[in-house]
Protein backbone atom coordinates (compact mmCIF):
# COMPACT_ATOMS: atom_id res chain seq x y z
CA UNK A 1 0.00 0.00 0.00
CA UNK A 2 3.06 2.22 0.33
CA UNK A 3 3.14 2.76 -3.45
CA UNK A 4 -0.32 4.31 -3.34
CA UNK A 5 0.92 6.91 -0.88
CA UNK A 6 3.90 7.76 -3.08
CA UNK A 7 1.80 8.06 -6.24
CA UNK A 8 -0.83 10.20 -4.55
CA UNK A 9 1.82 12.47 -3.04
CA UNK A 10 3.41 12.94 -6.47
CA UNK A 11 0.00 13.77 -7.95
CA UNK A 12 -0.78 16.20 -5.15
CA UNK A 13 2.54 17.99 -5.46
CA UNK A 14 2.22 18.22 -9.26
CA UNK A 15 -1.33 19.57 -8.93
CA UNK A 16 -0.30 22.17 -6.41
CA UNK A 17 2.67 23.16 -8.58
CA UNK A 18 0.39 23.82 -11.56
CA UNK A 19 -2.00 25.77 -9.34
CA UNK A 20 0.89 27.88 -8.16
CA UNK A 21 2.12 28.49 -11.70
CA UNK A 22 -1.41 29.66 -12.61
CA UNK A 23 -1.38 32.07 -9.71
CA UNK A 24 1.99 33.50 -10.76
CA UNK A 25 0.68 33.78 -14.33
CA UNK A 26 -2.28 35.73 -12.99
CA UNK A 27 0.06 38.57 -12.06
CA UNK A 28 2.86 38.21 -14.58
CA UNK A 29 0.87 38.35 -17.83
CA UNK A 30 0.39 41.74 -19.51
CA UNK A 31 -3.28 41.79 -20.49
CA UNK A 32 -6.57 40.20 -19.63
CA UNK A 33 -6.83 37.52 -22.31
CA UNK A 34 -3.44 36.00 -21.49
CA UNK A 35 -4.39 36.01 -17.81
CA UNK A 36 -7.68 34.24 -18.37
CA UNK A 37 -5.82 31.66 -20.46
CA UNK A 38 -3.26 31.07 -17.72
CA UNK A 39 -5.83 30.85 -14.94
CA UNK A 40 -8.28 28.51 -16.65
CA UNK A 41 -5.74 26.04 -18.02
CA UNK A 42 -3.94 25.64 -14.73
CA UNK A 43 -7.26 25.48 -12.85
CA UNK A 44 -8.31 22.42 -14.81
CA UNK A 45 -4.98 20.60 -14.58
CA UNK A 46 -4.59 21.37 -10.88
CA UNK A 47 -8.11 20.08 -10.20
CA UNK A 48 -7.47 16.85 -12.13
CA UNK A 49 -4.18 16.11 -10.38
CA UNK A 50 -5.20 17.04 -6.83
CA UNK A 51 -8.50 15.19 -6.94
CA UNK A 52 -6.98 12.08 -8.51
CA UNK A 53 -4.29 12.25 -5.82
CA UNK A 54 -7.04 12.26 -3.19
CA UNK A 55 -8.94 9.54 -5.04
CA UNK A 56 -6.11 7.11 -4.41
CA UNK A 57 -6.51 7.70 -0.70
CA UNK A 58 -10.15 6.60 -0.59
CA UNK A 59 -11.06 2.91 -0.31
CA UNK A 60 -13.69 2.85 -3.06
CA UNK A 61 -16.70 3.98 -0.99
CA UNK A 62 -19.12 6.95 -0.96
CA UNK A 63 -16.20 9.37 -0.80
CA UNK A 64 -14.83 8.04 -4.05
CA UNK A 65 -18.19 8.65 -5.71
CA UNK A 66 -18.30 12.19 -4.34
CA UNK A 67 -14.75 12.91 -5.48
CA UNK A 68 -15.48 11.58 -8.98
CA UNK A 69 -18.61 13.78 -9.07
CA UNK A 70 -16.57 16.82 -8.06
CA UNK A 71 -13.94 16.02 -10.68
CA UNK A 72 -16.52 15.64 -13.47
CA UNK A 73 -18.38 18.75 -12.36
CA UNK A 74 -15.22 20.85 -12.27
CA UNK A 75 -14.15 19.49 -15.64
CA UNK A 76 -17.46 20.60 -17.16
CA UNK A 77 -18.01 23.94 -15.47
CA UNK A 78 -14.58 25.50 -14.97
CA UNK A 79 -13.59 25.69 -18.67
CA UNK A 80 -17.13 26.81 -19.55
CA UNK A 81 -16.98 29.61 -17.01
CA UNK A 82 -13.63 30.81 -18.37
CA UNK A 83 -14.95 30.62 -21.94
CA UNK A 84 -18.06 32.60 -21.03
CA UNK A 85 -15.90 35.18 -19.24
CA UNK A 86 -13.55 35.62 -22.21
CA UNK A 87 -16.48 35.81 -24.64
CA UNK A 88 -18.26 38.35 -22.46
CA UNK A 89 -15.05 40.38 -22.22
CA UNK A 90 -14.67 40.28 -25.99
CA UNK A 91 -18.35 41.20 -26.38
CA UNK A 92 -17.84 44.01 -23.87
CA UNK A 93 -15.24 45.58 -26.14
CA UNK A 94 -12.05 44.69 -24.27
CA UNK A 95 -9.07 44.89 -26.64
CA UNK A 96 -6.16 42.51 -26.60
CA UNK A 97 -2.73 44.01 -26.12
CA UNK A 98 -1.90 43.68 -29.86
CA UNK A 99 -5.13 45.44 -30.88
CA UNK A 100 -4.59 48.13 -28.29
CA UNK A 101 -1.08 48.75 -29.68
CA UNK A 102 -2.27 48.92 -33.29
CA UNK A 103 -5.12 51.20 -32.25
CA UNK A 104 -2.75 53.58 -30.42
CA UNK A 105 -0.43 53.51 -33.40
CA UNK A 106 -3.43 54.20 -35.67
CA UNK A 107 -4.46 57.08 -33.42
CA UNK A 108 -0.89 58.53 -33.48
CA UNK A 109 -0.80 58.31 -37.32
CA UNK A 110 -4.10 60.19 -37.52
CA UNK A 111 -2.75 62.90 -35.23
CA UNK A 112 0.34 63.22 -37.38
CA UNK A 113 -1.81 63.53 -40.48
CA UNK A 114 -3.99 66.10 -38.72
CA UNK A 115 -0.98 68.40 -37.90
Amino acid sequence: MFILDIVSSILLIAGVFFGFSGAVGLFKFPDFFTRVHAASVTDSIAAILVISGLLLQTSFDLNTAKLVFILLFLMITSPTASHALAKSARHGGLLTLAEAKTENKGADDKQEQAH
Partner: protein
Amino acid sequence: MAELIDLVLLAMLALTALRIIFLKDLFAVVMLFGIYSFLSALIFINLDAVDVAFTEASVGAGISTVLMLGTLALTGRKEKKNSHSSLLPLLVVTVTGAALIYGTLDMPPFGDPDNPVHQHVAPRYIEESPQEIGLPNMVTSVLASYRAFDTLGEVVVVFAAAIGVLALLGIRRKKDSDLESGLKEHKVLHVIAKIVIPHVILFALYVQFHGDFGPGGGFQAGVIAAAAFILYALVFGLPNTLAVASPKFLQWMASFGVLLYAGVGLVSMIKGGQFLDYNKLAADPIAGQHYGIIIIELGVGITVFAVMLSIFYAFSSQAERSNVQ
Protein backbone atom coordinates in the same frame (compact mmCIF):
# COMPACT_ATOMS: atom_id res chain seq x y z
CA MET B 1 -2.46 22.86 11.74
CA ALA B 2 -6.11 23.77 12.21
CA GLU B 3 -5.13 26.90 14.16
CA LEU B 4 -2.80 27.97 11.34
CA ILE B 5 -5.58 27.57 8.75
CA ASP B 6 -7.91 29.45 11.07
CA LEU B 7 -5.46 32.36 11.44
CA VAL B 8 -4.81 32.66 7.70
CA LEU B 9 -8.50 32.46 6.74
CA LEU B 10 -9.53 35.06 9.31
CA ALA B 11 -6.77 37.36 8.06
CA MET B 12 -8.02 36.97 4.47
CA LEU B 13 -11.56 37.68 5.67
CA ALA B 14 -10.48 40.85 7.44
CA LEU B 15 -8.63 42.00 4.31
CA THR B 16 -11.71 41.35 2.17
CA ALA B 17 -13.86 43.41 4.52
CA LEU B 18 -11.29 46.22 4.47
CA ARG B 19 -11.21 46.15 0.68
CA ILE B 20 -15.03 46.31 0.51
CA ILE B 21 -15.00 49.54 2.51
CA PHE B 22 -12.83 51.41 0.00
CA LEU B 23 -14.40 50.16 -3.22
CA LYS B 24 -16.55 52.59 -5.17
CA ASP B 25 -17.61 50.23 -8.00
CA LEU B 26 -20.66 48.47 -6.57
CA PHE B 27 -20.26 45.53 -8.92
CA ALA B 28 -16.88 44.79 -7.40
CA VAL B 29 -18.35 45.27 -3.91
CA VAL B 30 -20.97 42.58 -4.53
CA MET B 31 -18.41 40.20 -6.01
CA LEU B 32 -16.11 40.70 -3.04
CA PHE B 33 -19.10 40.12 -0.79
CA GLY B 34 -19.52 36.77 -2.57
CA ILE B 35 -15.93 35.95 -1.67
CA TYR B 36 -16.56 37.23 1.87
CA SER B 37 -19.37 34.72 2.48
CA PHE B 38 -17.35 31.95 0.77
CA LEU B 39 -14.46 32.67 3.15
CA SER B 40 -16.70 32.80 6.21
CA ALA B 41 -18.20 29.44 5.19
CA LEU B 42 -14.63 28.09 4.98
CA ILE B 43 -13.97 29.35 8.49
CA PHE B 44 -17.15 27.69 9.70
CA ILE B 45 -15.86 24.39 8.28
CA ASN B 46 -12.62 24.90 10.14
CA LEU B 47 -14.54 25.60 13.35
CA ASP B 48 -16.32 22.25 12.97
CA ALA B 49 -19.65 23.91 12.10
CA VAL B 50 -20.32 21.77 9.04
CA ASP B 51 -24.08 22.39 8.70
CA VAL B 52 -23.62 26.14 9.13
CA ALA B 53 -20.90 26.19 6.46
CA PHE B 54 -23.27 24.37 4.11
CA THR B 55 -26.00 26.96 4.67
CA GLU B 56 -23.68 29.96 4.54
CA ALA B 57 -22.12 28.78 1.28
CA SER B 58 -25.39 28.02 -0.49
CA VAL B 59 -27.47 30.87 0.96
CA GLY B 60 -24.92 33.56 1.70
CA ALA B 61 -22.72 33.23 -1.38
CA GLY B 62 -25.43 32.00 -3.75
CA ILE B 63 -28.77 33.72 -3.17
CA SER B 64 -27.69 37.03 -1.61
CA THR B 65 -25.09 37.69 -4.32
CA VAL B 66 -27.58 36.95 -7.11
CA LEU B 67 -30.23 39.19 -5.49
CA MET B 68 -27.76 42.04 -4.99
CA LEU B 69 -26.62 41.75 -8.61
CA GLY B 70 -30.27 41.88 -9.66
CA THR B 71 -30.72 45.07 -7.63
CA LEU B 72 -27.58 46.62 -9.10
CA ALA B 73 -28.91 45.91 -12.59
CA LEU B 74 -31.70 48.38 -11.70
CA THR B 75 -29.97 50.94 -9.52
CA GLY B 76 -26.73 51.47 -11.41
CA ARG B 77 -23.16 50.51 -10.71
CA LYS B 78 -21.31 53.60 -9.56
CA GLU B 79 -21.51 54.92 -6.02
CA LYS B 80 -21.41 58.73 -6.07
CA LYS B 81 -18.99 60.71 -3.89
CA ASN B 82 -20.50 61.07 -0.44
CA SER B 83 -20.69 64.66 0.67
CA HIS B 84 -20.14 64.43 4.42
CA SER B 85 -16.61 63.79 5.71
CA SER B 86 -15.80 60.32 7.06
CA LEU B 87 -14.10 61.56 10.24
CA LEU B 88 -17.09 61.24 12.52
CA PRO B 89 -18.01 57.68 11.48
CA LEU B 90 -14.36 56.69 11.88
CA LEU B 91 -14.32 58.12 15.38
CA VAL B 92 -17.55 56.39 16.40
CA VAL B 93 -16.30 53.08 14.96
CA THR B 94 -12.92 53.20 16.70
CA VAL B 95 -14.48 54.06 20.06
CA THR B 96 -17.02 51.23 19.90
CA GLY B 97 -14.32 48.89 18.58
CA ALA B 98 -11.99 49.69 21.46
CA ALA B 99 -14.79 49.13 23.98
CA LEU B 100 -15.68 45.77 22.42
CA ILE B 101 -12.05 44.64 22.27
CA TYR B 102 -11.73 45.57 25.95
CA GLY B 103 -14.83 43.47 26.56
CA THR B 104 -13.39 40.42 24.81
CA LEU B 105 -10.39 40.36 27.15
CA ASP B 106 -12.22 38.62 29.95
CA MET B 107 -14.08 36.21 27.68
CA PRO B 108 -13.13 32.52 28.14
CA PRO B 109 -10.19 31.51 25.91
CA PHE B 110 -11.09 30.23 22.44
CA GLY B 111 -11.49 26.45 22.09
CA ASP B 112 -10.96 25.53 25.76
CA PRO B 113 -12.95 22.30 26.49
CA ASP B 114 -13.94 23.33 30.02
CA ASN B 115 -15.34 26.70 29.01
CA PRO B 116 -18.58 27.40 30.88
CA VAL B 117 -20.53 27.26 27.62
CA HIS B 118 -19.84 23.54 27.26
CA GLN B 119 -20.74 22.59 30.85
CA HIS B 120 -24.42 23.34 31.29
CA VAL B 121 -26.81 22.60 28.43
CA ALA B 122 -24.68 21.01 25.73
CA PRO B 123 -23.68 17.71 27.46
CA ARG B 124 -27.38 16.77 27.87
CA TYR B 125 -27.95 17.08 24.11
CA ILE B 126 -24.70 15.43 23.11
CA GLU B 127 -25.36 12.34 25.31
CA GLU B 128 -29.15 11.95 25.15
CA SER B 129 -30.06 13.07 21.64
CA PRO B 130 -28.69 9.90 19.93
CA GLN B 131 -30.76 7.72 22.29
CA GLU B 132 -33.94 9.83 22.26
CA ILE B 133 -33.97 10.61 18.53
CA GLY B 134 -31.54 8.13 17.04
CA LEU B 135 -29.98 10.54 14.50
CA PRO B 136 -26.20 10.83 14.14
CA ASN B 137 -26.44 14.49 13.12
CA MET B 138 -27.15 16.22 16.44
CA VAL B 139 -27.63 19.61 14.78
CA THR B 140 -30.52 18.28 12.70
CA SER B 141 -32.05 16.48 15.67
CA VAL B 142 -31.94 19.66 17.79
CA LEU B 143 -33.13 21.83 14.89
CA ALA B 144 -35.97 19.56 13.78
CA SER B 145 -37.09 17.82 16.94
CA TYR B 146 -36.19 19.65 20.13
CA ARG B 147 -36.65 23.11 18.59
CA ALA B 148 -39.29 22.12 16.04
CA PHE B 149 -41.56 24.99 17.09
CA ASP B 150 -38.77 27.53 16.53
CA THR B 151 -38.01 26.11 13.12
CA LEU B 152 -41.72 26.36 12.27
CA GLY B 153 -41.54 30.03 13.22
CA GLU B 154 -38.47 30.42 11.03
CA VAL B 155 -40.21 28.83 8.02
CA VAL B 156 -43.08 31.26 8.55
CA VAL B 157 -40.55 34.14 8.61
CA VAL B 158 -39.17 33.00 5.25
CA PHE B 159 -42.74 32.72 3.95
CA ALA B 160 -43.51 36.23 5.18
CA ALA B 161 -40.37 37.53 3.42
CA ALA B 162 -41.69 36.12 0.15
CA ILE B 163 -45.03 37.86 0.74
CA GLY B 164 -43.20 41.11 1.46
CA VAL B 165 -41.05 40.97 -1.67
CA LEU B 166 -43.97 39.98 -3.90
CA ALA B 167 -46.09 42.76 -2.43
CA LEU B 168 -43.35 45.30 -3.15
CA LEU B 169 -42.34 44.08 -6.60
CA GLY B 170 -45.04 42.14 -8.42
CA ILE B 171 -43.99 39.48 -10.93
CA ARG B 172 -44.70 40.76 -14.45
CA ARG B 173 -46.25 37.83 -16.31
CA LYS B 174 -46.64 39.52 -19.70
CA LYS B 175 -46.29 36.43 -21.86
CA ASP B 176 -45.51 38.35 -25.00
CA SER B 177 -42.32 39.88 -23.62
CA ASP B 178 -40.17 39.19 -26.61
CA LEU B 179 -37.11 40.34 -24.71
CA GLU B 180 -34.95 37.23 -24.47
CA SER B 181 -33.32 38.10 -21.19
CA GLY B 182 -31.06 35.04 -21.05
CA LEU B 183 -27.45 34.97 -22.19
CA LYS B 184 -28.42 34.68 -25.83
CA GLU B 185 -25.18 34.42 -27.67
CA HIS B 186 -23.45 32.19 -25.13
CA LYS B 187 -24.23 28.97 -27.00
CA VAL B 188 -21.68 26.99 -24.97
CA LEU B 189 -23.43 28.01 -21.76
CA HIS B 190 -26.75 26.81 -23.15
CA VAL B 191 -25.33 23.32 -23.81
CA ILE B 192 -23.45 23.08 -20.50
CA ALA B 193 -26.41 24.35 -18.49
CA LYS B 194 -28.55 21.60 -20.00
CA ILE B 195 -26.01 19.03 -18.76
CA VAL B 196 -25.44 20.58 -15.32
CA ILE B 197 -28.95 21.50 -14.13
CA PRO B 198 -30.32 17.94 -13.65
CA HIS B 199 -27.27 17.03 -11.55
CA VAL B 200 -27.73 20.11 -9.38
CA ILE B 201 -31.36 19.16 -8.68
CA LEU B 202 -30.30 15.55 -8.01
CA PHE B 203 -27.71 16.82 -5.54
CA ALA B 204 -30.38 19.00 -3.87
CA LEU B 205 -32.55 15.92 -3.32
CA TYR B 206 -29.53 14.06 -1.92
CA VAL B 207 -28.91 16.94 0.50
CA GLN B 208 -32.60 16.95 1.46
CA PHE B 209 -32.73 13.35 2.55
CA HIS B 210 -29.15 13.10 3.75
CA GLY B 211 -29.70 15.75 6.42
CA ASP B 212 -30.08 13.19 9.19
CA PHE B 213 -26.72 11.48 8.71
CA GLY B 214 -24.45 14.19 7.42
CA PRO B 215 -24.43 17.90 6.80
CA GLY B 216 -27.54 19.05 4.97
CA GLY B 217 -31.24 19.42 5.54
CA GLY B 218 -34.32 21.24 4.34
CA PHE B 219 -32.95 24.78 4.12
CA GLN B 220 -29.82 23.89 2.19
CA ALA B 221 -31.71 21.55 -0.16
CA GLY B 222 -34.36 24.18 -0.92
CA VAL B 223 -31.72 26.79 -1.70
CA ILE B 224 -29.70 24.48 -3.96
CA ALA B 225 -32.83 23.46 -5.90
CA ALA B 226 -33.75 27.16 -6.26
CA ALA B 227 -30.16 27.82 -7.45
CA ALA B 228 -30.64 25.22 -10.19
CA PHE B 229 -33.77 27.00 -11.44
CA ILE B 230 -31.99 30.37 -11.12
CA LEU B 231 -29.18 29.02 -13.31
CA TYR B 232 -31.85 27.98 -15.85
CA ALA B 233 -33.41 31.45 -15.70
CA LEU B 234 -30.03 33.16 -16.08
CA VAL B 235 -29.02 31.16 -19.13
CA PHE B 236 -32.33 30.56 -20.93
CA GLY B 237 -34.17 33.72 -19.91
CA LEU B 238 -37.04 34.46 -17.56
CA PRO B 239 -40.00 33.80 -19.93
CA ASN B 240 -38.91 30.17 -20.41
CA THR B 241 -38.50 29.67 -16.67
CA LEU B 242 -41.90 31.20 -15.97
CA ALA B 243 -43.29 28.55 -18.28
CA VAL B 244 -41.43 25.79 -16.41
CA ALA B 245 -42.24 26.84 -12.82
CA SER B 246 -45.08 29.38 -12.91
CA PRO B 247 -45.33 31.89 -10.02
CA LYS B 248 -48.83 30.57 -9.16
CA PHE B 249 -47.39 27.05 -8.73
CA LEU B 250 -44.61 28.45 -6.53
CA GLN B 251 -47.10 30.25 -4.29
CA TRP B 252 -48.97 26.96 -3.86
CA MET B 253 -45.72 25.17 -3.08
CA ALA B 254 -44.67 27.77 -0.50
CA SER B 255 -47.92 27.54 1.42
CA PHE B 256 -48.02 23.74 1.03
CA GLY B 257 -44.63 23.42 2.73
CA VAL B 258 -45.70 25.46 5.75
CA LEU B 259 -49.01 23.57 5.96
CA LEU B 260 -47.16 20.23 5.75
CA TYR B 261 -44.94 21.31 8.63
CA ALA B 262 -47.84 22.46 10.83
CA GLY B 263 -49.88 19.40 9.77
CA VAL B 264 -47.27 17.10 11.28
CA GLY B 265 -47.74 19.00 14.54
CA LEU B 266 -51.51 18.60 14.37
CA VAL B 267 -51.24 14.87 13.60
CA SER B 268 -49.02 14.37 16.65
CA MET B 269 -51.60 16.28 18.71
CA ILE B 270 -54.43 14.11 17.36
CA LYS B 271 -52.44 11.03 18.31
CA GLY B 272 -52.37 12.26 21.90
CA GLY B 273 -48.94 13.96 22.07
CA GLN B 274 -48.02 17.63 22.35
CA PHE B 275 -47.90 19.87 19.24
CA LEU B 276 -44.92 18.72 17.15
CA ASP B 277 -44.04 15.88 19.57
CA TYR B 278 -43.09 13.11 17.14
CA ASN B 279 -42.99 10.26 19.63
CA LYS B 280 -46.68 9.56 19.06
CA LEU B 281 -46.39 9.50 15.27
CA ALA B 282 -45.54 5.79 15.16
CA ALA B 283 -45.71 2.83 17.54
CA ASP B 284 -42.03 3.04 18.41
CA PRO B 285 -40.98 6.58 19.52
CA ILE B 286 -37.63 6.45 17.65
CA ALA B 287 -39.40 5.54 14.38
CA GLY B 288 -41.90 8.33 15.09
CA GLN B 289 -39.02 10.78 15.45
CA HIS B 290 -37.57 9.65 12.11
CA TYR B 291 -40.93 10.07 10.30
CA GLY B 292 -41.53 13.47 11.90
CA ILE B 293 -38.09 14.84 11.06
CA ILE B 294 -38.11 13.61 7.47
CA ILE B 295 -41.56 15.07 6.80
CA ILE B 296 -40.91 18.47 8.31
CA GLU B 297 -37.52 18.69 6.56
CA LEU B 298 -39.45 18.06 3.34
CA GLY B 299 -41.89 20.85 4.26
CA VAL B 300 -38.99 23.21 4.98
CA GLY B 301 -37.27 22.27 1.71
CA ILE B 302 -40.39 22.88 -0.38
CA THR B 303 -41.10 26.24 1.24
CA VAL B 304 -37.54 27.54 1.00
CA PHE B 305 -37.30 26.41 -2.64
CA ALA B 306 -40.56 28.15 -3.60
CA VAL B 307 -39.75 31.31 -1.62
CA MET B 308 -36.21 31.77 -2.96
CA LEU B 309 -37.35 31.18 -6.54
CA SER B 310 -40.32 33.58 -6.37
CA ILE B 311 -38.07 36.25 -4.81
CA PHE B 312 -35.67 35.77 -7.73
CA TYR B 313 -38.57 36.02 -10.18
CA ALA B 314 -39.65 39.31 -8.59
CA PHE B 315 -36.13 40.78 -8.93
CA SER B 316 -35.30 39.62 -12.44
CA SER B 317 -38.70 40.57 -13.86
CA GLN B 318 -37.95 44.12 -12.61
CA ALA B 319 -34.72 44.08 -14.62
CA GLU B 320 -36.69 43.44 -17.80
CA ARG B 321 -39.18 46.16 -16.99
CA SER B 322 -36.37 48.72 -16.66
CA ASN B 323 -34.75 47.54 -19.89
CA VAL B 324 -37.97 47.83 -21.80
CA GLN B 325 -38.46 51.53 -20.81
